[in-house]
């Protein structure tokens, strides 16, 4: 019997205590952030979007090589000795034309390896409030700002150079008594292979 009345007492007092708690919360400050009108600051170290400051990139391909999901498409061409492409932040002269620096950001796993490995710190994280896009295609970000004619000109120039080098090598081989089998293989840019892989992936998806 005593237990019965103790239960009753507990029931009544705990209900009153609970109602006091909820009453206090009625007038407490809300935690809701009314998103489109009030935009919350992102944390400065948030990994939200990769950005490459192309003028500071030395086109070393390190980021491309370390990325576990292989989302970089980089094409660079070594500049001639007489060309002046400006300075890198480290004080060294910039040596590469960057024709193409694309990332397919929809595949990124946000591991941050590419940012760690970038020596010039040109590749970095930014934290904009809105990183969403409506289509996957919009997540393919292109950082290279080279105009199309310039790109074509450089590519042509490079092809000519290569042809010339190949011709020189062939001439050298012919002159040097021809080692059989040692064909002058022009070194393929890594990029080309990479693009092929990407294309294959796209098809299988």
């Amino acid at each position: 019997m005593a237990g019965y009345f103790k239960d009753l007492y507990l029931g009544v007092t705990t209900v009153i205590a609970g109602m006091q708690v909820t009453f206090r919360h009625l007038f407490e400050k809300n935690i809701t952030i009314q998103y489109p009108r009030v935009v919350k600051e992102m944390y400065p170290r948030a990994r939200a979007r990769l950005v490459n400051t192309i003028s500071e990139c030395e086109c070393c391909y390190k980021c491309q090589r370390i990325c576990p999901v292989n989302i970089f498409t980089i094409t660079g061409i070594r500049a001639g000795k007489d060309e002046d492409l400006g300075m890198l932040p480290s004080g060294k002269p910039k040596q590469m034309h960057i024709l193409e620096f694309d990332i397919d950001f929809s595949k990124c796993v946000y591991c941050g390896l590419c940012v760690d490995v970038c020596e010039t710190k040109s590749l970095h994280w930014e934290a904009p409030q809105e990183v969403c896009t409506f289509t996957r295609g919009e997540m393919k970000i292109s950082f290279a700002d080279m105009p199309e004619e310039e790109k074509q000109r450089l590519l042509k120039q490079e092809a000519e150079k290569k042809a010339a080098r190949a011709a020189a090598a062939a001439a050298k081989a012919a002159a040097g008594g021809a080692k059989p089998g040692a064909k002058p293989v022009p070194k393929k840019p890594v990029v080309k292979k990479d693009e092929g892989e990407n294309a294959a992936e796209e098809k299988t998806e």
Partner: protein
Amino acid sequence: MSIIQIIISAIYLVGMIGFISVFALVAIWLERKVSAHVQDRLGPMETGGWHGWSQTIADMLKLLLKEDVVPDAADKPLFKLAPYIAFTGSLAAFAVLPMSANLIGTDLNIGIYYLIAVSSLVTISIIMAGWASNNKWSLFGAMRAASQMLNYEIPVALSLLVPILIVGSLSMQELVGAQAGGFWNWTIFGAHLGGGSFLLLPFTILAFVIYFWSSLAEVNRTPFDLPEGESEIIGFQVEYSAMRFAMFYLTEFANMFLVSGVAVALFLGGWHAPLPFLEISPETSILFHNLIGLGWFVLKAMILVVIQMWLRWTLPRLRVDQLMHICWKVFIPFSLANVLVVSLLAVLQS
């Protein structure tokens, strides 16, 4: 019954349906706001501008336009009928609710008795809905609803007996009329037995508390929302959609107002103002007498409705056995003893 009376009744009926709909729209919005602020949120803020005031109107339009799905295996006539019976039951009870001095459907001399009887119709409609849906969870909800609502009828009726004993009438208007002239005359403060005022105070307050809590079970509100149990079985309306679901929702809120209205009429002075000078006497203006009375009635009922919401967002749901424990081992013995003591005092007084 003359033709004029029929027309007046029809107008009152339509007015009552309109009142219930508007009340439901406001109350659902209020419920969302209360629940949101209890949880430190904001609730609806967009629709209609000021604090999302028209959110429920938009929701109602959405429900009206939705597809009305009737399950293949359902018992179709019963399934379709159930929500309307539920609403009819609660609307019929509004007929004897004294909204103001003249604003009452009909002042039956057994008004409160009729009200208790007819509001049980909701139980039948819930069983209909649960059974006809041909769905386990619906049936669980319906069984729980039946046991719970039938059990809690007893403490409700017993605790309503206390003001009836004090006033000595079953007519709603007489029950309200006896509480005129200031809040110290209200039944909850134990008036109307002459010098026995303070003597009755604990018993009337106990009766009010038991009535209020049992009425929560009657209208399936948390902590007694087992028939609905949104987080586990969803309940008897699990198969309902669109307009029929809206009908159940409307009934739930109509019942909330109904039980609060009964509490106001029987314990809290009905449409009388808490202080006599806040009323306009019928000699000055019969219209304003009624309007001010209606205002007080709705205000008091709304306060009780808000307390119901406040409780809902405070307490967790009970288990079925706890529910029965509270009904049979706490409310019923206490209200029985209460009725005995009050009737004894009433006899001694007279």
